[in-house]
């Protein structure tokens, strides 16, 4: 019967090689999945919407200068594309292993959980990067249309790099919450609430109302993606006092992270959440 019988002793690959194996097949799964197609369509819709609005209404903020164009276009929308990519590819990356029972196929093999986790992380990051790069290409194509290839500012290169780092941090956060839950809906919901609303709300509460720099908020650090496209670079702290009648005023404070500070926030979020997610996954039980 068993024609698969062999006398050879298979040598189990190194953990690093197994990361590559895990990455290869989960990337294949991502690229073929409906979610990749949906994310692609959403990205193209955002890009198409901006292309049509700029071409039709020709807003001053976009067309007054090349830096202004990239600041308005890229600075306005890329963080949204990044967060969506993180949610789509990382939101249920680990919780899905429990809920969809795919973990039962991979885990009972001679492979460390960390190899599965890192492989999945890299594949999710690569899938999100492909969406991110598509959006960057569309942005650049529009910029070249209006300002020519010489109008591509060097600051955009930095912004692109910072945005890519931010994508890594967002993926870390998504993987962390994905590891915390065994239910995909919960993990996606928590990631969406935190990345799309929670961080911004915390940031606003601390800076605008209390006047404390929200250095502990990821989206605050990600501000460098847009700030680098402003000339001059925004001041670290801007206090606005607005009279609201009867000798009363409203004071709001806007903070802008410096580039080293922003990179540090993004880097710390990436490292801490990715490692925490891995530790949680290592201990999580398939009950």
């Amino acid at each position, binding site marked *: 019967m068993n*024609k698969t019988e062999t006398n050879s002793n298979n040598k*189990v690959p190194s953990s690093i090689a197994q990361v590559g194996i895990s990455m290869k097949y989960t990337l294949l799964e991502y690229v073929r999945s409906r979610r990749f197609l949906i994310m692609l369509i959403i990205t193209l819709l955002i890009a198409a919407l901006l292309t049509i609005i700029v071409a039709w209404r020709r807003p001053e903020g976009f067309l007054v200068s090349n830096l202004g164009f990239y600041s308005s276009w890229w600075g306005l929308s890329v963080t949204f594309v990044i967060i969506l990519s993180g949610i789509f590819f990382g939101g249920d990356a680990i919780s899905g292993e429990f809920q969809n029972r795919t973990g039962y196929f991979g885990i*009972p093999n001679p*492979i460390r959980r960390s190899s599965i986790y890192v492989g999945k992380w890299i594949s999710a990051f690569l899938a999100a990067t492909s969406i991110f790069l598509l959006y960057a290409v569309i942005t650049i194509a529009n910029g070249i249309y209006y300002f020519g290839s010489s109008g591509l500012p060097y600051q955009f290169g930095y912004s692109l790099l910072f945005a890519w780092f931010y994508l890594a941090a967002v993926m870390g956060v998504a993987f962390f919450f994905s590891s915390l839950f065994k239910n995909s809906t919960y993990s996606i919901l928590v990631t969406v609430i935190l990345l799309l609303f929670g961080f911004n709300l915390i940031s606003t509460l601390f800076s605008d109302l209390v006047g404390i720099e929200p250095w502990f908020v990821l989206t605050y650090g990600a501000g460098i993606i847009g700030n680098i496209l402003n000339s001059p670079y925004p001041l670290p702290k801007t206090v606005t006092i607005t009279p609201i009648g009867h000798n009363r005023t409203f004071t709001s404070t806007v903070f802008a992270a410096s580039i080293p500070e922003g990179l540090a926030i993004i880097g710390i979020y990436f490292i801490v959440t990715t490692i925490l997610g891995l530790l949680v996954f290592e201990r999580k039980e398939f009950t």
Partner: protein
Amino acid sequence: MPFSDVPTIEAVKLTKQYGSFVAVSGLNLKIEGAKCVGFLGPNGAGKTTTLKMFTDLIRPSSGDALINGINVHTNKKAALASVAAIIETPEIYPSLTPREGLSMIAEIRGVPATEIKKRIEEAVEEVHMSEWLDKRVGRFSKGMKQRINIASTLLSSPSILLLDEPTTGLDPRGMSEVREIVKSLKGKKRLIFMSSHLLSEVSEICDEVAMIDHGKLLVYDTISNVTSKFSGGANLVEVELQHPIDPQLVTQRIAKLSNVNSAEQTNDTNLRIRFSGGLDTQERLLSDLVKMNIGVISYRPASSELEGVYLNLIKETV
């Protein structure tokens, strides 16, 4: 004794506790050698929990799960290198095809790249899924997925197979095919540890049986020893004959054969014979019946005997 040639799985005071609920309680069980061991117990007895602790799906609260002497939780890669397992009903990523899913497992297990294609095609042929090899798994039924899972265990010639109710979700034909695969693996230096609710399945496939309830091992022995020990010291065989038999022959000759406790006719062509002893006695009894030229066309241990033992043992622990 790490890396012994004899496949071994061993639970040493293996315990799994969820709060105050003890799923597996100080389980001590050592199984070694090429054989098939059925793992029996009612729902919630701790069968799947035990198998999960042997495959890194859950961690023991205390104690050790050892495979070939290697602790699964401190050295998982080495421990599971010689193990293939199906726990519950695993799912392959739905956008992958069986070829891709099985390639992933083959690569993880270190099957040489030059052999992967051939082994996958052979394994899939074994489970009669060749025509689905390049279709996406997401569209498969539960039974089809389980066949692919069975194929995954054939890829790397593991010396130990841990199977958690492997025929779950399969149609009768699929169940029969899986049993044949498991039986054939038994003869190839494999240790198979298989949980099942189906006592007839265990009787048919397995050489030994381990019974567990409330997380505690009740008995581990050969099926014939278990049935003789726990069913009033007698085994039971059912004999089918080609022609009707003279009732006097039953009472005067068959019932008086060596080690036979009783012989009764259930109808003209069927007998139930109770005897004391193990497999050797069972073999000699068959030989004696054949020599009597009574037209024996079928001779099999009655699964109801194992069922009786099972029910008695489980009842005692309730």
